[in-house]
């Protein structure tokens, strides 16, 4: 069975694996503590909309995104909300639609 194409906003990928690879590359372009650029933020908004807990993650609304430390010295995307709160999210979950335990 051929892989299904997958879209994040205006970006179209041949399959989910490519989408995850794209988001991985985006993440690794940043150092911890960086603000995500406006251009990349558009993709992340689209990605977050597909997150299984997207509504909860978005909460009061997205102000911008940062890259910060995750557990075990790794890094991940964080959504900064308009009410000043912040929460991390797994970009893989935005593509595969499930939240991995741990």
């Amino acid at each position: 069975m051929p892989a299904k194409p997958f879209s994040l906003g205006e970006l179209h990928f041949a399959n989910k694996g490519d989408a995850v690879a794209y988001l991985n590359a985006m993440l690794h372009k940043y150092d911890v503590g960086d603000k995500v650029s406006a251009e990349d933020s558009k993709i992340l908004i689209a990605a977050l909309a597909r997150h299984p807990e997207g509504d909860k993650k978005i909460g009061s609304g997205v102000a911008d995104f940062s890259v910060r430390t995750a557990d075990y010295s790794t890094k991940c995307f964080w959504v900064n909300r308009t009410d000043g709160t912040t929460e991390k999210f797994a970009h893989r979950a935005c593509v595969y639609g499930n939240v991995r335990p741990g």
Partner: protein
Amino acid sequence: MSLDQLATWLMDEGVKDDVETLTRLAVRTELDNLAPETAETAPIDWHRLLFAGSILARSAFRQHQEAALRIATGAVTMADTQPVKDAGAVLLGKLTNFRAVALANDRKLLETDLEGRLGFGLRMEAQRRKLDHSVLVESSGHWLQVNDFQQRFWDSATLNNWLSASAPTASGKTFLVLQWLINHMRSAETRVSVYLAPTRALVSEIETNLAQLLGKAAEIEVSSLPLPEKYDAAQLGGKKLILVFTQERLHLLANVLGEDVHVDLLIVDEAHKIGDNQRGVILQDAIERLERSNDDLKVVFISPATQNPEELLADAPRTAKTDAVDSDVPTVIQNLIVAEQVPRKPKLWNLSIRERTASQPVGVLELASSPGNVTKKLAFIAAAVGERGGTLVYANRAGDAEDIADLIAQLVPVIEGTDKELIELADLARKGVHPNFALASLVLKGVAFHYGNMPSLIRQEVERLFKSGKIRFLVCTSTLIEGVNLSCRTIVVRGPRKGMGNPMEPHDFWNLAGRAGRWGNEFQGNIVCIDPDDTTAWPNGVPIRSRYPIKRESDAVLETGDGMADYLKRRADTPLFELADVGRFEQVGAYLLSTYLRLGSIAQASFAKRHNPNTIAKIDEQLAALADKIEIGSGFAERHPGVSALGLQSLLEAFRAYEKDVENLIPAPVESQDSYDRFVTIMRRINEHLYPAFMPDSLIPLYVVIVVQWLKGFSLAAMIRANIDYHNRHGRKFVLPKLIRQTMEHVEQVARFKAPKYLSAYMDILHLHFREIGREDLIDTDLDIGTQLEFGVSTRTLLSLMEMGLSRMTAVSLYEKIARDNLTKVECMKWIRERDDQFDTMDIPAIIVREIREKILAIDEGSPDTVSP
């Protein structure tokens, strides 16, 4: 027979036996828990001894002077007849040791009106000696009685532009220098003086002493903050200013002032530390920086017993009048005692006194229990031999200091009724550090420990109560030889190390030992060395008395021949992490490169004349190759001493190559959620480009937590609580005392030392980059990050409180109660004054309330009438 020959004969034969007997008897009165002596001692022939003493007093040799002092002191303290005591006092006068005479009077050892009992000739002589040894404090019209060294210092400091003075630890140097400084400020045109001290501990001590000497509502300001306000006021004709700084703080202020920095008088205390690895060259740079901006700069160097104080004058301008004032004269008798276990009797220790090569037994010390290990040996012997108090124990590590103090506290007699000041100190330790901080329960028993990373408010109170006698035992670490003016009656030491396990050099040992004997408070001081023949403890034996050789760090490195040129060659294209000798060469290398960038060749620099021209030429060649790669101006290197221009250039290139939004390069405000991670990335950038300062990489997250909390104005207690919570949350085990010490160490060494040094260089280069790319809008002109970090402030209110002279501990505890974060000094003052009568009910430790009252409210109430003379 010449006088010297006569004196030598007296020492070697004439009165040798009598002096030995006198010494043994005198030492026995100093030590507690000695087994009683059975043998009778022949009576001392005082007349013979005093006559010999008066001859020995005229000799310039230290050992003759020592013997004369011993005879004089013995006569005053031990003889039973008034004429002998009087003669002892006259001999002390001949030795210009007026403080010892004053002490004898205080102790009622002499009957009043000594001069009245002297014959006409002696009376005249005594009065003439007093007149000869007085200096006129011009500003007040008072005469100050001084000893020979102090007098030479006073005269020479007034006559010369550059002066280097050296004298043993307890010879009243600091007291006199501060007196002279104040007098000079009052009577000369001097507007701004800088007093450099090597540690923050000594800075706060000197600042406190100056404030006390000047009195309330003084016409001279004293400050230890590198802020331009008071400096500008002083230059514009306002109150004159004395700035008390470490070398790093001086650079911070000079950076803020830029070209305008102009200091009239510079005093460099503990000047031998110009030889320290890594910080010595920063000190040298600070001196040269002030000299460059004022050709007429007056400089006074002070060092403890040094061999070659004149070395510090080598770089004085040719036109400057220079002088070295040197003294090796003892002011207090110092007894070097060794303690060796009686074979097969671990509770009994033979004590003997050592003088040069000779040794004579003084008695047997009886311990209450057998000391099983090294820690117990130190603790048990100290507790026994120094039971009456004033006893200092030297520990090699902060952790050992805590353990030894705990053991001593179990052995010493219980103090009846606990003292209010000790209770207050315990309260401060509990609230300011942690409820279970060991110091709290120890001080209630009159025992304390002391190390450099402790908050200054606590450390100073420990020192004060040790001086006053309420703390009877103090266990300390090498902070004491790094520059804290604290003397004691008895020091107990075994196998002392300095820093990371290196045996102490003889001059360091004698700097420590020199603290035994409080001139003017005691007649003698005792140094007890345990296990002198144990080569693990003392690989080179108990050091014989020796004085510091002064050698600049830069000179020491340059004398390694081609080492420096070789390093600079590799430095050009080797990643910093791969340079094994970066710690040894980088700071001096940075200094040389900075000098090269300024002058175009280091052969032009004044230090070049001291070195082999071939070495200098080779280094010049390497520097030329490095300088080709450097575009930043020499000003940048000058602003960041110890940070290589090559590193600054490398960082600039990294900024230029940065492709993402440049706003990500700026540290995020500490309130921001990105702050923590942004600092992590910045520290990694610093490690890669400037210097591997934050190592190992795996500890960076921990360093950043400390830095962010420190900047947020957290109290030390809050930082320790947060650290404990972190360990609990992550299921990590910890040992509380160690965690407390580690948090203190990270605050002092990372947040207050490395972070300001490297982050201010980082910001400077970042601003250069922003100007290059036309993004001046991103340059924030607020308080620079270096100053924020040194003081642990990021809000106006907290800074205002510290500008008022409060310690950070006090400032933070007030800040916790103040709602607004943008108060000026005047507004803070108002806030404090409105709550004067509420402080006692606010659950603020009494010592903090006392500091507020002494430093803020008292000054506020002071009127010009209360100016002390």
